[in-house]
């Protein structure tokens, strides 16, 4: 084809895309950037609901039996519903959509230098199913009997028999929503892996792929390999609830432990499914803001593979006191403690990256550093819980609760803010306000520690998790313990108030912020070589990649960064 004809072809193509109506651009898009933002915004709305639930039940714990402002009275059944759906929402409707589906969609094509996902329409379908799943979950709060209250792990027989759970419809809608959500991420995940494998820019070898993309791919593979059993379990639980089978009911020959195995076989890899994208985001941010090459790219990558592999053989550490064979508990103790080795190695690589760098404490960097600090506390307390001997005492106490909030809060909330503040200029073409960003950071990070550090001590004092009012337990109803609960709750309220700063900063910057240049952070990866925000189709010409993503402060170069697509100088 001649050059002129080619130009005509390109032009008509561009025009064609400008004609997209509002409906096709924002409501039914196939553009990965818009779909990514749909996921991120839906996830943020769900985060508000999840945070509101946390506020309501924490107020009940601090001031039992009193009217909660902006909510009302929290009864025992309602308390269970709030706790259950707080957990479900934060993991399945915030962490997953924002970190994997949202940023995965937005970043993968931009970072590997291609125009869109390999299966754009599948991508759109994935979001639509996700939206339906969110609506089904929200609908479950309003049906007769209220939302499901059997904890996010949904153990039968409590979850499978309406007479026990008292939420006939809530329980079924809950499991239906979770199953739909998995179908949605299944479609999205197929897209992510295929795109990263088959659509990279010319010259981008496997070891030139940015860590953020690699980790999302590893996370997706973990998800795909672990979700099957939970879908099977969800179908079985749904049948138990609705058409009278007895898969999980001992009275009918079933086995309630079977659900726990199916659930946790998915549930534990799931922790790493949400952890890995955040670790990838943090790797991008700390290299950019310490102006140093990532320490041990291959080591970091291989530790992710090791973590992923090991995450399939640790699930029974959630069931140490559920009546499993003690010999099995020993095996799972060993594997659980083993998995901390690759993760620790990764953390050391990150800290080694920081060592000797010229660190700039911009807002994204603050989030990234606070992630490392907070996640270390979560990880270290996990070693206690992984040892079956100690877990027998700690199980279902606030120690467990504080432990997994020290992992999930950094993963979900800190990771989300790190990524949003870092890629905001690319997404919306404007800079966020640094001062407000820092106020929001400290207003979130300090209260976060004030909420959850005290809960470790409550757990050590023997405070059990699923109790809505401690006044009935003389050992736990002392004034000292109650003071700790009030302190944690007040910290939560402070943290929630500081989120208003973020919301203000986010929306004001989106429309009125300083115009962002193409590459505000002087980063190397491909998404920073194109205008902010990127046009439909991303790259005007497919970029050619010459080097890895972390070539910062290379000796002998004038600039301290070296974009991946910059041709090497001719000698």
């Amino acid at each position: 084809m001649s050059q002129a004809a080619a130009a005509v072809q390109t032009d008509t193509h561009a025009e064609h895309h400008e004609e997209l109506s509002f409906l096709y651009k924002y409501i039914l898009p196939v553009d990965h950037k818009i779909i990514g933002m749909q996921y991120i915004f839906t996830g943020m709305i769900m985060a508000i609901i999840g945070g509101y639930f946390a506020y309501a039940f924490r107020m009940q714990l601090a001031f039992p039996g009193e009217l909660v402002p902006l909510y009302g009275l929290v009864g025992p059944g309602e308390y269970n519903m709030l706790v259950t759906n707080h957990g479900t929402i934060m993991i399945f409707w915030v962490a997953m959509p924002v970190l994997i589906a949202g940023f995965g969609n937005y970043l993968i094509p931009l970072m590997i230098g291609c125009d869109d996902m390999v299966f754009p329409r599948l991508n759109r379908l994935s979001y639509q199913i996700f939206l339906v799943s969110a609506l089904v979950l929200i609908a479950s709060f309003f049906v007769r009997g209220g939302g499901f209250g059997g904890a996010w792990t949904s153990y039968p027989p409590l979850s499978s028999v309406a007479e026990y759970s008292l939420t006939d419809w809530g329980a079924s809608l809950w499991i239906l929503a979770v199953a739909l959500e998995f179908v949605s991420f299944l479609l999205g995940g197929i897209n992510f892996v295929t795109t990263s494998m088959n659509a990279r820019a010319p010259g981008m070898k496997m070891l030139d792929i940015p860590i953020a993309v690699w980790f999302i791919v590893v996370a997706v593979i973990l998800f795909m390999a672990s979700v099957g059993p939970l879908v099977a379990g969800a179908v079985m639980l749904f049948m138990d609830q609705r058409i009278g089978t007895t898969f999980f009911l001992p009275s009918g020959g079933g086995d309630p432990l079977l659900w726990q195995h199916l659930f946790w076989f998915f549930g534990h890899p799931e922790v790493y499914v949400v952890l890995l994208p955040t670790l990838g985001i943090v790797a991008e941010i700390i290299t950019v803001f310490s102006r140093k090459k990532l320490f041990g790219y291959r080591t970091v990558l291989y530790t992710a593979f090791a973590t992923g592999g090991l995450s399939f053989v640790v699930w029974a550490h959630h069931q140490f006191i559920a009546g499993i064979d003690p010999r099995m508990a020993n095996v799972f103790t060993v594997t659980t403690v083993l998995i901390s080795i690759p993760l620790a190695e990764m953390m050391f690589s990150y800290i080694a990256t920081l060592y000797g760098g010229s660190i700039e404490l911009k807002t994204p960097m603050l989030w990234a550093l606070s992630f490392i600090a907070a996640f270390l506390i979560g990880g270290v307390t996990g070693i206690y819980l992984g040892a079956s001997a100690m877990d027998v005492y700690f199980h279902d106490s606030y120690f467990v609760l504080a432990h997994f909030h020290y992992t999930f809060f950094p993963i979900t909330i800190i990771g989300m803010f790190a990524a949003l503040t870092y890629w905001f200029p690319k997404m919306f073409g404007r800079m966020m306000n640094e001062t407000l960003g820092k106020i929001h950071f400290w207003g979130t990070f300090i209260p976060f520690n004030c909420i959850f550090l005290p809960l470790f001590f409550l757990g050590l004092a023997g405070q059990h998790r699923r109790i809505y009012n401690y006044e009935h337990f003389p050992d736990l109803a002392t004034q000292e313990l109650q003071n700790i609960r009030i302190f944690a709750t007040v910290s939560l309220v402070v943290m929630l108030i500081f989120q208003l700063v973020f919301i203000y900063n986010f929306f004001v910057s989106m429309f009125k912020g300083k115009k962002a240049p193409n590459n505000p952070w002087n980063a190397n990866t491909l998404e920073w070589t194109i205008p902010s925000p990127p046009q439909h189709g991303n790259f005007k010409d497919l970029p050619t990649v010459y080097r890895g993503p972390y070539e910062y402060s290379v000796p002998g170069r004038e600039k301290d960064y070296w974009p991946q697509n910059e041709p090497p100088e001719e000698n």
Partner: protein
Amino acid sequence: MKTPSSQSVLLAASELSLPSQPQRAKSPVSSGVVGMLIFIVTEVMFFGALISAYLVIRAGLDEWPPWGQPRLPVETTAINTLALLVSGLLMLYSRKLMQKDKVSEGRKWLGFSILLGTFFLISQGYEWVELIKYGLTVSSSVYGGLFYLIIGAHGLHIIGTLAFLTYAWKRLGAPVNPLTPEGLLPVQLLWYFVVCVWPVLYVLVYL
């Protein structure tokens, strides 16, 4: 002008073709196939979970099948199994033909393969009706529940895959923009999976 290398049925790709751009390195495996292989990994884990659920529940009961439950039709299902396996082989044969550019002949054998799959499905459906008459239902015992769960899950896969195959069969003969044999491969892979998992389920559940 670059033509899309693969147009799969399940996962239709809309590749932008801008001729002036540098081309990506051609991947050895088409996107449709990569996507389908990942999906099959999930499916393997899904059926693996059903099988382990079956084994766990069966190990927990003294008598299997439980007292008073009808026996499953081993012989007729053996014939069915054979039909399904032959259908898989015909699918392979049709692919071989298409690779030798005999597309219309390959399409014919693909049609036979689909017909055998449909025979399997109808015959299984008839079997279910009979079993329900004999009193084996999802709620009659955990045995019945597992039977309908596992065989039903497989049956739904058969229905879905047959629907895609029939659509592909139609598209292969389309006068304008017909489906390429390579574009057919992902859905064929799914059919191989559905065929291969059946003998495992047959041995486990029926024998």
